């Protein structure tokens, strides 16, 4: 973890297949195919090494981005829960209402 502090290691790591990896991999593949078509080569069949390399770079960046995103959301959740714990007067427990108390009386017009 290059940019992440040590405490981020308590979080579960994202799977190899994760949302950001798939998206960036697809973007890398689209870049390679665009490069092919702009150079008047068959889009899918040419430069397979380039396609593989771009997909891999995208996948790699996506994995580390997911890790960073998980850490950022975890810190936000921790700060929010800590605030709720320190200010209980702002979060009173409300008695649950039944639907009969909320719903307005029904006057059918037939």
């Amino acid at each position, binding site marked *: 973890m290059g940019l992440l502090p040590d405490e981020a290691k308590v979080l579960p790591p994202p799977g190899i297949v994760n949302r950001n990896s798939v998206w960036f991999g697809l973007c890398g593949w689209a870049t390679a195919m665009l490069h092919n078509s702009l150079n008047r080569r068959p889009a899918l069949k040419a430069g397979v090494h380039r396609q593989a390399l771009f997909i891999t770079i995208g996948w790699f960046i996506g*994995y580390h981005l997911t890790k960073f995103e998980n850490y950022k959301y975890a810190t936000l959740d921790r700060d929010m829960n800590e605030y709720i714990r320190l200010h209980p007067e702002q979060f009173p427990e409300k008695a649950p209402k039944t639907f009969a108390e909320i719903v307005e009386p029904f006057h059918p017009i037939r």
Partner: protein
Amino acid sequence: MPLGRLFLRTSTVNRMVSRNSFIASKPDPSKPNMLRVGLAFGSTAVLWALLFKQHSTDLHEYKTRNGLE
């Protein structure tokens, strides 16, 4: 020194950047540059290996820090 004189050196560098029209050739798709292809596939393999190693390290760290192993 006038500024123009400082730029005179670039003609030696420019020789490598531009291509002489007498010896330049179109890129030939039937003769792939095997070094570049090898480097591309090699770096692909290296990146995947790095990714899997990083993932297993992270998983191990997570398990030891939360006492799950």
